[in-house]
């Protein structure tokens, strides 16, 4: 199987910070907003270089979304930064009416998504944000897997006109996306070709899927691994092409199975090419405190869980 090399663990939020800093230098219309979490979102560089284009909102996320919507009227491209929980559920109607329905060019950038934020616990660990965001008409929904991909995605979404939800996380994880890989919104990335099973993963689960595929190979199972970074619009064709070959699929995400990537794919396949599917996702539960590794294990979100799901789905072929 194709080998991927971890270029050195890093957090996806730092990829966001680096991408934003680069945008600050290249696109004078990009402005940034934050609700008292500058350090957590790694926005310092942008602020240092473009103090006049940064808006510290204070702890007031609803106000931030409204101000971001307003800034687009006048041609600015606002990037909002706060935790995923406070970027979505907290401000759903502000996003819905002032951004999505009004078709405003706001980039909602959300860190600390999922259980891997760790010790802060369930109040901060949103596992429902992809669902909330993908249900909004016109919203582009992206969940990146590593530092390089997050940096590239941050830069790419500035070029896309329309509301975007960009989701990333807190922990340092393997960084394996080639540094020069272009980020194409809505286009799946083929990571490994295989014949027995399709594994489609997003976010932090992509690296886990690669480890799972390696372990499966040792058992003589050939897994195709696809990174779907854009949940919406979904690259259905890439999925369809793969499952026509493999005949079964496992989806993997750090999100509730309700409302997540797996649900989008099952909906798509139900109408095009019904396929046995297993979901590696949280099972309609809140999270809790713990280390990221412990939580990934307890909530069935790691390479072990993916291997188990593959074994299960193969029997249903």
């Amino acid at each position, binding site marked *: 199987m194709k080998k991927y090399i971890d270029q050195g663990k890093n957090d996806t939020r730092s990829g966001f910070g680096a991408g934003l800093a680069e945008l600050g230098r290249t696109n004078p219309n990009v402005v940034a907003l934050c609700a008292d979490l500058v350090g957590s979102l790694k926005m310092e560089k942008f602020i240092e270089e473009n103090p006049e284009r940064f808006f510290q909102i204070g702890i007031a996320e609803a106000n931030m979304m409204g101000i971001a919507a307003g800034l687009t009227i006048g041609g600015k491209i606002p990037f909002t930064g706060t935790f995923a929980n406070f970027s979505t559920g907290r401000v759903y109607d502000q996003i819905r009416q002032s951004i999505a329905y009004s078709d405003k060019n706001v980039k909602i950038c959300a860190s600390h998504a999922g259980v891997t934020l760790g010790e802060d*616990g369930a109040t*901060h660990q949103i596992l429902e944000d992809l669902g909330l965001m993908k249900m909004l008409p016109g919203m582009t929904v992206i969940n990146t897997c590593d530092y390089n991909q997050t940096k590239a995605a941050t830069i790419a979404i500035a070029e896309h006109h329309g509301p975007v939800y960009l989701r990333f996380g807190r922990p340092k994880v393997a960084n394996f996306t080639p540094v020069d890989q272009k980020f194409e919104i809505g286009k799946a990335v083929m990571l490994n070709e295989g014949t027995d099973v399709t594994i489609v993963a997003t976010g932090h689960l992509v690296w886990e899927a690669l480890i799972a595929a390696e372990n499966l190979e040792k058992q003589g199972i050939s897994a195709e691994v696809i990174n779907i970074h854009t949940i919406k619009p979904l690259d259905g064709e890439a999925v369809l092409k793969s499952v026509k070959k493999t005949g079964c699929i496992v989806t993997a995400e750090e999100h509730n199975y309700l409302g997540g990537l797996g649900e989008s794919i099952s909906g798509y396949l139900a109408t095009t090419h019904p396929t046995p599917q297993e979901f590696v996702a949280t099972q309609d539960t809140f999270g*809790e*405190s*713990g280390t990221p590794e412990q939580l990934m294990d307890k909530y069935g979100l790691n390479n072990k869980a993916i291997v188990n799901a593959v074994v299960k789905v193969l029997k249903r072929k």
Partner: protein
Amino acid sequence: MPKLQELQDLTVQVRRDILRMVHKVNSGHPGGSLGCTEFIVALYNEIMELKDGFDMDGKDEDLFFLSNGHISPVFYSVLARKGYFPVEELNTFRLIDSRLQGHPTTHEGLPGVRIASGSLGQGMSVALGAAQAKKLNKDSKIVYTLHGDGELQEGQNWEAIMYAAGKKVDNLIATIDYNGQQIDGATKDVLPMGDLKKKFEAFGWDVVDIKEGNDLEAIIKGMKEAKSKTGKGKPVCVLLHTVMGHGVDFMMYTHAWHGKAPNDEQLATALGQNPETLGDY
């Protein structure tokens, strides 16, 4: 009434608990916790009228809601030392399978907690509901809350502040941890909030200023004054002027320790400034 010395001893012990809890898991929020230690100690041991044991409805006893849930260490320590759950359980703070989540929650059934908090700005609304339930129940006890000053930037607070006065919820005492700090810096730099006292008064509240928010006697005096103002048609706000990180010299007067744990060496120094009184857990 417990003697002042007993409360002082408890305060120092709670500080030790806070420091040891956040140090062990290398995460959590010592700054605000240390700044509110005297207040929570005094509230639970001198001010609030509490029944034995814990039940969710809390009828015929005073209630407390921690809206700034990130200062869970001070809340957990005071609850444990008041007997709500075993003090040893402080050992499980922020660990997997614990009832002591990073932010307080009812999810695992920890006695003493009546609502989840952590996402800021929601506690006052909940307290208003509980206060109005007390009125429906002809229960004359009081509902207390604590909020961060930065937390007041959340608009929901001002909806609640307007409602409380408009609907004459006069069995509510909402305290603001007025430490002038939040995550990204001083509140005056992040988002200046103007004159909070005048704002609350303009919204129709009675306001009590506790200038020495880290002095037990001043807190007790101020809270008794606040209590004397309840039942008169207006909600009561206490502006508690505290020092973030109080009791540990290198953590004071800065936002730097809002959400950062001390390392081994720093812990030793901090504990040295707060010698054991009632016994570590």
